[in-house]
């Protein structure tokens, strides 16, 4: 940004504020005046900064475009007249002229932005694909870990040496944690009976129902119950 312009604007703002504060009775207006000064300075700075940055970007693009065209021209100058005739040379000169004007600079910025957009989009898509693959693997691993824990619970439930008959019946009749699917599976095995009275039937029912456990709380409750 050109500092002289900003300085001029700040002086103008300062003069306006000084005029506002000519008497002590107007002290109550100091705060609002200072706020005006800060806000005004901010706006002035932003506008001039953006204009300067835009001009600088256009100028840089013009120079870059001309240098690119210049490079292409010099590379062709080594060619024979047949390969690089006068008409082609004049055409390149016209391109060189256009590269240095405002429309050419704006076109250059647009092309650069488009290329950057395409590149950014490709990178974003690649990152998204990578994330999805990792998430799928992670989700699958969580499911496999849950299944392994349920298998461990069922292995204990099936084996009388690990879970006495009375305990198996108690767990089937008063499960430490249930969900709708668990209850439905248990009910199929229980049939019309009010409670489980046969330990083998209770173990068979639990063997299938435990597969229906899903939440961490449910699994933890069962892990604790079968290991008591």
């Amino acid at each position, binding site marked *: 940004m050109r500092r002289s312009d900003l300085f001029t604007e700040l002086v103008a703002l300062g003069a306006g504020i000084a005029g506002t504060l000519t008497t002590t009775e107007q002290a109550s207006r100091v705060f609002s005046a200072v706020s005006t000064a800060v806000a005004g300075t901010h706006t002035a700075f932003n506008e001039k900064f953006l204009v300067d940055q835009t001009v600088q970007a256009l100028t840089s693009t013009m120079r870059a475009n001309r240098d690119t065209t210049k490079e292409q021209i010099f590379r062709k100058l080594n060619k024979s007249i047949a390969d690089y005739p006068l008409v082609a040379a004049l055409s390149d000169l016209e391109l060189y002229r256009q590269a240095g004007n405002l429309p050419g600079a704006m076109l250059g910025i647009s092309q650069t932005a488009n290329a950057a957009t395409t590149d950014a989009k490709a990178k974003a898509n690649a990152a998204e694909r990578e994330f999805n693959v990792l998430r799928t*693997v992670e989700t699958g691993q969580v499911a496999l870990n849950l*299944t392994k824990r349920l298998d461990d619970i069922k292995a204990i439930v099936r084996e009388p040496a690990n879970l006495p008959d009375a305990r198996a019946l108690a767990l089937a009749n008063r499960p430490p944690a249930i969900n709708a699917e668990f209850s439905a599976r248990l009910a199929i095995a229980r049939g019309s009976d009010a409670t489980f009275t046969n330990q083998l039937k209770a173990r068979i029912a639990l063997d299938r129902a435990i*597969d229906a456990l899903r939440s961490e709380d449910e699994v933890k409750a069962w892990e604790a119950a079968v290991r008591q």
Partner: protein
Amino acid sequence: MDMHVTETRLPDGASDADIQARIDSVMSGYALACIVETRGDGSKWLVRVDADSEMIDAAIADGKTPREKFGAQAQQVLASRNS
């Protein structure tokens, strides 16, 4: 008496060893039979057949496990799904 079929989707990315471990686990329990099916979208499902209350009672009355008594019938149920 009624056999009950339960389908459970296996995790995406589960290896052959993971799937075999699931089958072994189910068959070491009281399921009558089980099979792994691959659907059109590539997903894999564990399908198990279980006995209902009457079948369990009948097996226990005979001094057998439900699979010993009804395993062959359960295999036919699974086979009919793929035919």
